């Protein structure tokens, strides 16, 4: 069953068309990777899904509901969380304040405490640093905070924008490891990555994006062996 369906989506920045009529779907329980070079339109797609940028044409359905025109702040309580590109943690607030903001739309106090415990179990470093100001964390720790913050809303679909960007290899492995665990816990993942090798290794299916269009799609394992994918995205 599709949890997210995107139909013929087009997005503009002023007169420039960044997304040129793309369609794809994400099924319940999957990890879907969206790969493509810098500037291909990956971030634009995620921001349009979560309501930060308006769609010019096409439709977006989430759990069967048309959310194309739903304001971004209403999507969180519907079960969508977004780990944005560049992490965008609230640098002047503490780790704990950041995590609590992740649960902003929730009213169940006990449930929030329970989720906080789980997030701390998943990211022990966040617990150690819960009273530290987020701006003083390392890049990898900020990425964990951005992921933990997204998990605080208890999402059914989590979209992640380049979670491994700028991180040291140890952190990259750890982050991908955690993405796998989040998915095994029952959360559907839409993952945007420039690290195509790692993304394809973890994903069920993938879409390849070039200048606002999907040029290839299929099973992640098949794409990993696809010659043009190998040449464009997997060569060192």
């Amino acid at each position, binding site marked *: 069953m599709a949890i997210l369906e995107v139909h013929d989506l087009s997005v503009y920045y002023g007169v420039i068309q960044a997304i040129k009529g793309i369609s794809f779907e994400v099924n319940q329980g999957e990890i879907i990777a969206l790969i493509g070079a810098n500037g291909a339109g990956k971030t634009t797609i995620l921001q349009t899904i979560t309501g*930060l940028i308006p769609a010019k044409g096409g439709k977006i359905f989430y759990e069967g509901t048309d959310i194309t025109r739903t304001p971004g702040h209403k999507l969180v309580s519907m079960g969508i969380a977004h780990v*944005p590109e560049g992490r965008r943690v609230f*640098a002047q*607030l503490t780790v704990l304040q950041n995590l609590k*903001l*992740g649960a902003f739309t929730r009213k169940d106090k006990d449930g929030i405490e329970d989720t906080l415990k789980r997030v701390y179990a998943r990211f022990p470093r966040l617990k150690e640093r819960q009273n530290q100001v987020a*701006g003083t964390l390392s*890049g990898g720790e900020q990425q964990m905070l951005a992921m933990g913050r997204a998990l605080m*809303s208890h999402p059914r679909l989590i979209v992640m924008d380049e979670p491994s960007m700028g991180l040291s290899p140890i952190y990259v492995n750890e982050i991908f490891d955690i993405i796998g665990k989040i998915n095994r816990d029952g959360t559907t993942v839409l993952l945007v990555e420039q690290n195509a090798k790692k993304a394809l290794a973890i994903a069920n299916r993938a879409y390849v994006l070039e200048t606002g269009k999907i040029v290839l799609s299929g099973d992640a394992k098949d794409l990993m062996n696809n010659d043009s994918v190998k040449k464009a995205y997997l060569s060192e």
Partner: protein
Amino acid sequence: MSFLTYLINGISLGSIYAIIALGYTMVYGIARMLNFAHGDIIMVGAFAVFTAVSTLGMPPFIGLIAAIAICTALGLTIEFVAYRPLRGATSLAVLITAIGVSYLLQNLALLIFGSNTRQFTSIVTLPNLKLAGGKMTVSSVTIVTIVCCIVIMIALTSFINHTKTGQAMLAVSEDRGAATLMGINVNRTIAVTFAIGSALAAVAGALLCSMYPSLTPYTGSMPGIKAFTAAVFGGIGSIPGALIGGLILGVVENLSKAYISSQLSDAIVFSLLIIILLVRPTGILGKKIQEKV
């Protein structure tokens, strides 16, 4: 003995600047705009109290509550009608709109109340305070103003630190997009900020006119500019900065009026601002733009 009187009066005037400066600094911090009409909301608040108390004969406290309600509604209306449609527009367009709103309020007041100076009846009816065995008198307005400022500062700080709406304000002030991703309604949060700033402006208007009891449609503009100066002084966007900036401004203004020249006091105040900004461009408590890792 008189130095102490000047100092206390300066702190009291500075408390009013601080209360007004809070409105500028919160709106700037959260909506990223200079609300130049903020000073005129003070004037509207003062006229609301004047009408309620002097014309309609209501008790001062009820008049103050009415003024707070009117100014809050006015602030929300201005935000919704004039500023919200410009969200995402250039800051120059927003600034020009704010100046337009300022003139609109002044001219509406001219139309309704005329240009005659009204004699404002103090909302503080307590007796004056005699200190040092009767050698020194401090007016009750002065004391009440300082107490109001302290109470407002404490209340606002705990509102921001301990309520969800307060945390949402901090989130919006740092990153609107990320705040939206938390499920925070950015427009609503900005509206709440305007409501708080405007309610405080009503209080400031009532206190200001209780201290200096002449009221005209232009009453708000000079204190507005000075409070804006105080906000920049303390570090725009910072709540403790508004307090410190307001107090310094009030004290410097009053002492230079007393000891140097009452004509030059404004020049001295603004020179001080320029010097401070040359040394610390972000103001006394202003934060540097945080670098992203």
